[in-house]
């Protein structure tokens, strides 16, 4: 990469994607709503987020009632659902909470490979995960509606403590 700005953004995007993957794994261990949403996904279902054309990426797999983080080099053709950012800049804006996921969809910045019904379920899980990760004022910017976090503060603490130890 010739441009230092792009190298910087790529590193940030790679870091946030891995954080997100670990967060999905940790939140799915403790959050009942995520577990409930996951019931509609088949066992072994792999969801992937990727920046076109060649990454970075991250993938998670449904194992029982939780997601397992698969790391950043899972092969795209083996994933059941691939959420693709069309370019690095779009990924950077979404993953640094400058743009909401639904706005990114509306602006054609994301394309999806796979069953769109399952994409909706995965998106709802992601929304809950983002509510865990972001302070309320940031979550208010990136989500159409912030899931109530009132009874989830202890779980949030647990997720945050475990994040550095995910895969």
């Amino acid at each position, binding site marked *: 990469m010739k441009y230092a700005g792009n190298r910087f953004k790529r590193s940030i995007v790679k870091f946030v994607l891995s954080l997100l993957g670990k967060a999905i794994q940790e939140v799915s261990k403790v959050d009942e709503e995520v577990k409930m949403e996951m019931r*509609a996904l088949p066992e072994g279902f792999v969801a992937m987020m990727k920046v076109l054309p060649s990454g970075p990426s991250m993938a998670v797999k449904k194992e029982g009632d939780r997601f397992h983080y698969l790391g950043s080099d899972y092969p795209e053709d083996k994933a059941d659902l691939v959420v693709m950012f069309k370019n690095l800049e779009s990924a950077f804006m979404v993953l640094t909470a400058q743009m909401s996921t*639904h*706005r990114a*969809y*509306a*602006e*054609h*910045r994301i*394309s*999806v*490979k*796979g*069953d*769109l*019904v399952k*994409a*909706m*379920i995965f*998106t*709802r899980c992601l929304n809950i995960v983002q509510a865990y990760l972001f302070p309320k004022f940031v979550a208010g910017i990136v989500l*159409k*509606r912030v899931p109530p976090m009132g009874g989830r503060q202890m779980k949030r603490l647990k997720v945050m403590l475990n994040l550095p130890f995910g895969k």
Partner: protein
Amino acid sequence: MFNLPDYFEFFAPVKIVSGRKAVDNLPYELDQLQAKRPFIVTDKGIEKAGLLEIVKKAMDAGEMEIGAIYDETPPDSSIEVVNEAAKLFRENNCDSIVAIGGGSVIDTAKGVNIVVTENADDLSKLMGAEVLKKPMKPFIVIPTTAGTGSEVTLVAMISNPAEDVKMPFTSYRLFPNTAIIDPRMTMTMPPKITAATGMDALTHAMEAYYCNQKNPFSDGYAITAISMISKYLVRAVKDGKDEEARYVMANAATVAGVAFSNSMVGVVHSLGHAAGGVAHIPHGVAMAIFLPIGLEFNIPVAGKYIGELLLPFAGPEEYARTPEEKRPYRLIELVNQLREELHQLSGLPLTLKEAGVKEDQLEEIAEHAINDGSLMFNPRDMDRKEALELIRKAYEGK
């Protein structure tokens, strides 16, 4: 300041051939696309109504052979139907596709185009948004209803009976090359279908005006379509032989199609697709039932835009005498008046109960509604509880 989105995309690549005896241009348009053996996708009703004859006559005059005809399309197209039709396409060495029919036929034809282009054996392996890459076969659509707008859209809705859902396929590759709008092709539509498909077109235009991908281009199409529909839908339902009304409605549906194909649709379609998938009610009927409910649901976040629709729908006098904050509510009142009039004229159902939906299906419809992709483009989020509330309201009609 003009409310321009930060970023938007607009694409309307379909050539429109519209007007008196437009179908007679079919061989010429096929030739322009270098097509020699078109595969016709249609249904038995089209054949029975004599509409296929109009096309066959035009093909004969243009000295072009029809490769094969698939006329088994059911009202609710499915993966199996698409795979079966694609087989017939291949067996007859066809090189292009002509869809003659309503939404189900056009969606089936789009599905066939995906399968034969991608050389796949099964459509379900090619699901997704914007994932199809190969250039498709030449594809011409002759709509016989004035509603779906599918002749100018990038979407195909195909049901998956195994999971009781309608699967959306969206890709810029799915746009037809040409849409032929000929008033002769919609003249035989019965009043109830005219009413339902017209409400479908109205829903496309209204949702396009306030959903998340709205932009100045789609706005222009949406407003034009609403104005045409509000003036001519009742006329077309009252008198099917009113050629002017048929012609305007056929074009209005296409104009609305361009609008929503670019700005997408929202919660009315999420609920309607779900009701269609679970209870098999016709799409237009579902749109007529859910439109006022969806408009009302969105007022807290998109009331300004919904209020602005009063102008094309009711005209400048009504718009001017209604205070700004009351415009969205007045619009809903007038949409309900239109529904009532269509109900009186054609028997168009106004509630899910009247449409034959069973009360024990409501929860399943709600579950499907929140998983429908169109919800992503609605300005307001809808959760399970809200979906069920709206569906109960649509069931009882209050």
